[in-house]
């Protein structure tokens, strides 16, 4: 399964407005499938930074790196699933999205990266 197929699987979940594959250390977009109005470059930079900081925080606290990050806001959520090779799968979802299904698809897709 290539990167495009992995993004397709997550994009098909109801309420998902965009999915990106991000190089976490650089905060740059590797691949993306976004609806109009979603700023992929900003999402990649900020989500990459967030996941990097959370990973360092967890490691400093003696825990393993996070397997899934859910940042919930009033107008929707940002989901992130770290994968191998410093890649992170990021999804921008609407408030009424099926978060549970998106989470399952993202964790599965992130495991197939690399």
């Amino acid at each position, binding site marked *: 399964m290539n990167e495009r197929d992995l993004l397709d699987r997550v994009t098909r979940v109801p309420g998902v407005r965009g999915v990106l594959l*991000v190089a976490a250390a650089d*905060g*740059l977009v590797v691949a993306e499938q976004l609806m109009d109005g979603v700023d992929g470059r900003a999402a990649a*930079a*900020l989500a990459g*930074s967030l996941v990097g900081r959370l990973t360092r925080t967890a490691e400093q606290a003696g825990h393993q790196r996070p397997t899934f990050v859910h940042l919930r806001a009033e107008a929707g959520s940002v989901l992130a699933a770290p994968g191998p090779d410093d890649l992170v799968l990021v999804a921008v979802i609407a408030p009424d999205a099926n978060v549970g299904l998106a989470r399952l698809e993202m964790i599965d897709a992130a495991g197939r990266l690399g």
Partner: protein
Amino acid sequence: MRALEPWVVEPLQAFLSESSARLTLLMTSSGQVVAQHGFSRSLDVMTAAALGAGIVASTEELARLMGSPRFGALVHHGVGQSCMLGAFPTPRGRWIGLVVFGPETSVGIVQLFFDQMVEQLALAAPREQAPPPMLAENFESELDASLKALFGR
């Protein structure tokens, strides 16, 4: 952070807060420094400005030879720290930004907020005519005055 023109301060301060850049230098395309953050010696500022302006001039000439538009930005990735060099238009002429950043931030974050700073500078710039180009006979005195303003001594 010190700036020669007060309208530069707010956009630059926002960029520094958001990007976590270690060093930042804003200069004209001829290497005349407009603002700096993080440099402790005037010699370093002069050297960085001269080198930055020279690199941008070289890459723009390379782009012209290749028949392509100007490069947006040049990023040099290092182990301990990285450097981004980007030229951009302002109502006061073409300027160059030189940013040095470490692993506490990322090139994506730096580029994102650099672009926001460029937009804010364009909005904040006074609409009066840009100052005339510096003449050779005034160069040394102008440089001394700029460095005094940038380092407060």
